[in-house]
């Protein structure tokens, strides 16, 4: 038997690590922004919650229904945004998410797109809410 690493030609070690030990799982009490992306038809649903203070994302959490890549991208995304300003966070592209995971297989790149989308929506939500305030 070869090692698992050889076998998992599908995913990088980093993806598998995040998939197995996802960071920041769960809902957030009174988040400042929520982003929903995906839908049941495509089989991936992401919910991203952010807490913002002084224009800086101080906390992020997620809930995801989806494949291994969807869970791993959600997990790493929450790590990537923490500590970033809203402006910085808005610049996080799906490619950056994929790269942070040491790459995704081509057929899974849509998961990183979903993550980018969820983040954009969460920020939008935050901005809309803060305007209203």
């Amino acid at each position: 038997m070869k090692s698992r690493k050889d076998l998992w030609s599908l995913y990088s070690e980093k993806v598998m690590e995040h998939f197995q030990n996802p960071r920041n799982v769960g809902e957030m009490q009174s988040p400042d922004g929520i982003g929903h992306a995906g839908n049941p038809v495509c089989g991936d649903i992401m919910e991203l919650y952010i807490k913002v203070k002084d224009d800086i994302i101080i906390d992020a959490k997620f809930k995801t229904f989806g494949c291994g890549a969807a869970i791993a991208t959600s997990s790493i995304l929450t790590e990537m945004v923490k500590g970033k300003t809203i402006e910085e966070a808005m610049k996080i592209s799906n490619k950056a998410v994929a790269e942070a995971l040491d790459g995704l297989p081509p057929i899974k790149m849509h998961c990183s797109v979903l993550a980018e989308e969820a983040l954009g929506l969460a920020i939008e939500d935050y901005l809309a809410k803060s305007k209203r305030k």
Partner: protein
Amino acid sequence: MRRIYLDYAATTPTHPLVLKAMLPWFTDGFGNPASIHSFGQEAKGAIEEAREKVARLIGAKSEEIVFTSSGTEADNFAIKGVAYAKEHKGKHIITTAIEHHAVIEPCKFLEKRGFKVTYLPVDKDGLVDPRHVKKAITDETILISVMHANNEIGTIEPIKEIARIANDRGICFHTDAVQTVGHLPVDVDELKVDLVSISAHKFCGPKGVGALYIRKGTKIVPFMHGGEQEHGRRASTQNVPGIVGFGKACELAQKEMGQEKVRLQTLRDKLISGILDRIDDVRLNGHPTQRLPNNVNISLEFVEGESMLLNLDLVGIAASTGSACSSSVLEASHVLLALGLPHELAHSSLRLTLGQETTEKDIDYVLEKLPQIVKKLRVMSPLYKPGKK
């Protein structure tokens, strides 16, 4: 780590006796069966012996068996072959919404080339209603193709009734029996079928070999054109070791099928009831009793299939899902959707298919691990609102 294979419907290990039977035909008996010299005649003898074994398993005559490279090829051959042979009579084909892609895609190909195809619906358990078949028949209908048992949900279709309807109307009837031959008794005369697709690797034979049973007198155009092999019905140098292994697998299946069926059914039912007992919000897909002896297909609400598979694999359990992330667009299984499942449930399916090496201990292990995994994933799932239900 312990490794438990519960994906026998996808493929099976080659039986050691099958491999043993194949070995001489790679190196010593390597001749081309089409050759006149003794190297060739020796190989020819071997494939004819295998042909008899395949024929015997399904109650056919050996000259009614044409070897192919797989179940998919047998399906392509049957569908396109009859379509082209009969197109002057009509261009209408009847099949079902839950066929394997190896039947559906050739039908779609023919649709682009002027044929009309009716895809019959199924009920919530996956059963095709023979009355629907009857109603769908027109004067243009030249072929009816209904699978013997579904590969995803395990539902066994009322083939005999449907074949009778086809026979009464003089319409050619094909069944994809890739999931039943070698597992359940299949007799072409009892079922009154004209064409049957078989694949060796689904019952401990080698990959890359299959057969199409063609009832004597059935008009069919070859799929693979070229040399005169297989009495001009399928060109290309025969895969001698593969065919010999296929024959051996048929011989073994014929002997062991009966007992194995009972053994697997018991394990299957233990697994199903074990899961239903231990996990909430689970739905059994497919017919409760009229199902393959080795098939368990369940939807575990709020949890996506691939993420379950990965987690199962991490604890050594190999399974399958109807949530296909293999293509660029995520698609839920067309079979599960045909049952009327909403997309969430279709994406939440898990298929566990048992086989030769499955033991009761394996089942216990799955019953220990699966609830933990589902729990972990449900915590992560935005669809899961505990207490809401």
